[in-house]
Each structure stands twice: as structure tokens, then as C-alpha cells.
């Protein structure tokens, strides 16, 4: 599988904009979390933005994605509304899930975002189902599953590869290898190279530097195209790093540490946003000033979204009565 083309100027700028949006939203969520403004916890995606952005760049509104507990980035990259997401995380009625799901469950079906998922591996089977639906629709839709290196050890991963390959489903499996399975360094819980696992199913597997947005963009381009053409599933392993904690609250309740600060600093030097910015400037696609302007615009968006979220009302406690079932009392 080879990428269909290189990103255009517009696409380059979109990539950067998406990544910056994710970053700024999450930095604000970080601050709001520590300020005690959020009712629940957040699992931040900071450091991994190139993956969501590089993959979702190839998707349309009617393509499906399923995401994880670390799902803000996927939501935003797939075109989800920052206001509705932030309001959700504040537990507000204006939230994308009316405040019922929170950070781990941000979903927008109208944009093909089947939802973040608090169950590790929970999105896998769901994506297979969406891929089956896409295949039956026969309109070239694809279904993309984002999951972590930890999730790759759940049996559903293998099951999905088998079903996907067998039925040639338009399924794209994106494994974000961010160094940790919760608090366990990945290699303490994972045997072999995850990127080898698809081979037994004749599923094309590509490993990329997940902090290199362009590399991700290219690998995803090929994988999505493969699926759209009816050639079946493909797999991309994106190696990256979560520079924040597993859960932003962990500093308050973990009894120990599980990594050296130097490791974090190392990875901060490989920051995907700085890296893409540098490339874009080097390639004369934009200037640093333009990036600054973009950033300010994004910061305004985030500011507005947060103001909106804070000003929104909490949901009515009675709302749940209508939500367990469609048109039926619980």
C-alpha cells in the first residue's frame, strides 16, 4: 500500500490546525481539571495529536470512527464541535451527549463519531459492525478504529482482524502505541511487535512515527484508500508518547511514579506540533507568524467554547428517563 499522494498546502494547514486545536482544547481541560472545574477525570491526548489528525484528514462525515478513553483528539479531528465536547466534559445539557457521557464517551453520530469508550477494546467490535454496515451500504464508506497498544492485547483485536479479513470489510485499525498500557510500560505487557499480528490475516500492516504528522497522513491515506476500494482491512501502528499522565488525576492518587521525567522531556523534544510547524515553515507553506495567528484564532475558539460550557445549564435530572430506551420508560 502506498499513499495516494502527498498533502496539499490546504491539507498541510488543516493538519496543523487540527493538531493545534486538540492541543489547546486539552491544555485548557488540563487547567480546568486541576482547578476543580470538571466533574470527572480526563485522559489527555497531548503528544499524540498527529495520529488523530493524520488519520481523520482522510475521512468524510459519513465515515465512522470509534475511539477510546483518550478520545478528545479523535472527536475533534473527525470534525466534532469543540463547544459541544467541552460542554459535555463539564457535564452540561449543551454537551454533545447532554452531559450523560462525559470525557470518556464523547460521541457525535451525525459526524460518524460512534464514541469514545471507557472499555479498553470496547470500540473494536463496534467498528467491525460499522464496517459491516458500510460494506452493505456500498457507498465507499470506511470504519476506523482507534485503539491503544494496551487494547491490542484484548482478544477482540484478533477476532476483528479475522472477521474483517474474511469478509473484506472496509475496516482501518489504528493502533496508537504511546508507550503505556495504563501505568505499565508497553513492553512489560506486550509480547512481540504488535505490527506483526495482522500478517497472519494477510492484513497490510504499516508502522509509522506517530509524532510525524505527514508520515501518519501518508500511511492513513493508503489504508483508507485500501478500504474504500473494497480491498479489506488494514492496520497502522503509530508509535508516539503520551506526555501527560494516564489520567490527569493520577498525580493526586497514585502512590508512586512509573516513568522518569527525562523520558517525558525526550519526547517533548519530539513534539508533533512543533515538528509539523517546522516542516511547514521550512517548506514555505506558511510562516511562523501565520501559525501564531492560527493559534490565536484557535485559542479564541477554545475560550469561547469554555465560556459556553461554563454558562450552560446542567441537564435536568429527569432527562435520564428518556435516555435508556427510545420511546419507552426505563
Amino acid at each position, binding site marked *: 500500500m502506498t499513499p495516494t499522494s502527498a498533502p496539499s498546502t490546504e491539507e498541510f494547514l488543516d493538519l496543523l490546525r487540527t493538531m493545534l486545536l486538540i492541543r489547546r482544547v486539552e491544555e485548557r481541560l488540563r487547567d480546568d481539571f486541576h482547578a476543580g472545574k470538571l466533574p470527572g477525570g480526563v485522559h489527555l491526548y497531548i503528544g499524540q495529536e498527529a495520529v488523530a489528525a493524520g488519520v481523520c484528514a482522510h475521512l468524510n462525515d459519513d465515515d*465512522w470512527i470509534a475511539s477510546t478513553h483518550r478520545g478528545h483528539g479523535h472527536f475533534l479531528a473527525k470534525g466534532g464541535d469543540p463547544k459541544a465536547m467541552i460542554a459535555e466534559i463539564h457535564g452540561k445539557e449543551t*454537551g454533545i451527549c447532554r452531559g450523560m*457521557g462525559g470525557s470518556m464517551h464523547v460521541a457525535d453520530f451525525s459526524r460518524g463519531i460512534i464514541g469514545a469508550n471507557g472499555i479498553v477494546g470496547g470500540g473494536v*467490535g463496534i467498528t467491525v459492525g460499522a464496517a*459491516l454496515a458500510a460494506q*452493505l451500504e456500498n457507498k465507499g464508506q470506511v470504519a476506523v478504529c482507534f485503539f491503544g497498544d494496551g487494547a491490542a492485547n484484548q482478544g477482540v483485536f484478533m*477476532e476483528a482482524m479475522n472477521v474483517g479479513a474474511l469478509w473484506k470489510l472496509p475496516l482501518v485499525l489504528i493502533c496508537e502505541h504511546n508507550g503505556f498500557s495504563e501505568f505499565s510500560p508497553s513492553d512489560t505487557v506486550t509480547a512481540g511487535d504488535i505490527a506483526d499480528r495482522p500478517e497472519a490475516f494477510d492484513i497490510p500492516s504499516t508502522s509509522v512515527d506517530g509524532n510525524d504528522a505527514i508520515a501518519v497522513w501518508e500511511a492513513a491515506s493508503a489504508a483508507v484508500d485500501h478500504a474504500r476500494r473494497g480491498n479489506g482491512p488494514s492496520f497502522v501502528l503509530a508509535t508516539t508518547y503520551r506526555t501527560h499522565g494516564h489520567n490527569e488525576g493520577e498525580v493526586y492518587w497514585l502512590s508512586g511514579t512509573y516513568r522518569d521525567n527525562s523520558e517525558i522531556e525526550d519526547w517533548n523534544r519530539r513534539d508533533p506540533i512543533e515538528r509539523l510547524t517546522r516542516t511547514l515553515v521550512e517548506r514555505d507553506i506558511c510562516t511562523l507568524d501565520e501559525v501564531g495567528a492560527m493559534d490565536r484564532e484557535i485559542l479564541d475558539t477554545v475560550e469561547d467554547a469554555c465560556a459556553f460550557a461554563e454558562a450552560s445549564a446542567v441537564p435536568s435530572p429527569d432527562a435520564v428517563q428518556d435516555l435508556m*430506551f427510545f420511546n419507552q420508560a426505563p
Partner: protein
Amino acid sequence: MAKKRLIQAINDALTEEMERDERVILFGEDVEISMFGDTVGLLDRFGPDRVRNTPICEATLSGMAVGAAAAGYRVILHMMFSNFIYTGFDAIANQMAKIRLMTGGQIMLPVTVIAGYGGGRSTAAQHSDTPYPALMNLGGINVAVPSTPADAAGLLKTAIRGNNPTFYLEAGGRGGQRGEVPDGDHLMPLGQAAIRRSGGDVTLVSVGAMMRPTLRAARALAADGIEAEVIDCRTLVPLDTETIKASVARTGRLVVVDEARDRCSAASHIAAVIAEESFHDLRAPVRRVTVPNIAMPYAPNVEKPLLPNPERIAEAAATLVQA
């Protein structure tokens, strides 16, 4: 009206619904040849797009049901034996039962899960569970337990056309029971219990296939001068408590007959509801005739007495009336 075997009523209902709405799809292990006969002929008729034999991977199958339904299809998932529900329980309990609430009601989830349940045929512990108590407790799952061919057809059609996940449980080995099925498009709403027999002395509530032994018990009781009212739940979620309460208001006595294990059974729940909401109507203790808290053994002479039977049911009812 046509007399049909229960399994035939199911097969006909599936055929009609798939005929009626081309967005209805069905998948599961060996749905082509069909272990129980309920899905026979569907693959031939509707083709491999809409009817798929799957690999053995229940964890993914239940997740797929959620995903395909969320993406706009009406899904029928056949899980074969109820015990395999446990193998696919993650996506049932964590996704299917919760995703509508978690996403703020963005979607409907038209999923029907079919599985055979119950013991009595020496299939031993891993092929004879009665799983509805766990499903009932999840909150977001309807549970249908038809006991007649007419209800089998009517409830299945309602489930398939419905927009909420519904477990449709077939009583294992009892698919051969025959009964009349109304002609035409026969639908039975969820949440309407059936009064199978009227009587003023005691109310017998039966779950699923327990209807027959319960009716038999009622006949035996009648021979002793005790008139039992027999109510067949038809669905456990939603549960028609009104019909049960109205009956208890007349009889003052209740026996619930359920082939689930006793602890936290459907029978427990119905008994609890009545002990709260109909307390002042009750003239005697609420009895449960259930399976003891034991996994099904293989030896028939050990298995049989664990299941509710007309004798145990009649005895329970008689004690209440005579007390």
C-alpha cells in the same frame, strides 16, 4: 389462524420481517444450517449480505451488533445457547445496554438478540443457563420470553421493528410445541402479560416456557377445588406489573414460577414488586418456584427435580390457599 410449531413461527416471523424491511440483517454462528431450525432457509432467501454465518467470536459479535445498529441497520444476532451470551457479555453489558444513555440519546439501537435457554435435556451446566436475571438488571435491555407460537411470532416481530435492544429468548428444546398463530401481520407489544386461565384463589405467574407446567398445575389444583389464575409474563422487560397486581388484588395469593436460579431471579423481582405494591392485597406469603442456586447437572434424574414442575407449583399454591 394456522397451527404451527413454535420454531416454525419464529422462522416465519424472521422471514416476514426480512422481507418487509431490507435493512434487517441477521448474523451468528451457523445461522445458515441453523442449530435450532429457527433461521433455516434465510441465507438462501436473503443472500450472504444480509444473512451471515460468523466465526466463533461472541465478544466481537455482540460489539458488531451495536456497531451495525448504530450505523443504521436493524440487527438480529443469533447467539445459539444462552451460555454464550456470557462470552459476549462485555459489549452487551457495557455497550448495548448503555450506549444510548451515554451518548445522550443520539441513537436508537434496533438490535434483537436470539438465544435458546434453559435446562432439562442433559446438556449440562454450560448449555442450560437461564440468563434473563443478569440481563434484566442491566437496565437498557428488553427481554422477551415467548411461550406460545403466536407470541413467539408477535414478540419477535415487535422486537425486530422496535428501536431498543431486545433479548428474545427461546426455551431450549421446546420449539416443537404447537399452537395457533394468527394470520397476517401479527404483532404482540412488549409489556403485555397474558392471562392464560382465570381463577380467584391464587395467582400463578409464569416466565416463558414455565407457562405449560403452570397451566398443568392449575388444572391439578382445580381438581382439588382450587381455582388458579395463570399469568404468562411474555416479557420481563418491560414487565406488566399491572396485570399481575390486578390479579393479586382478586386472589390475594401469588406464586411465581421461573426456571432461572432463585437468587436475584425474575421470580425474586416479581415477588419483591408485589410485596411492595400489592402488600395490602396479599393474604399469604409470596412463593417462588425456581431452580435452586445450582448449576445444571447432567444426570437426568438429578437435573429434572431441580426444574419447576406441575407438582412443585401446585404444592406451593395449595399451601398458600390452605394456610
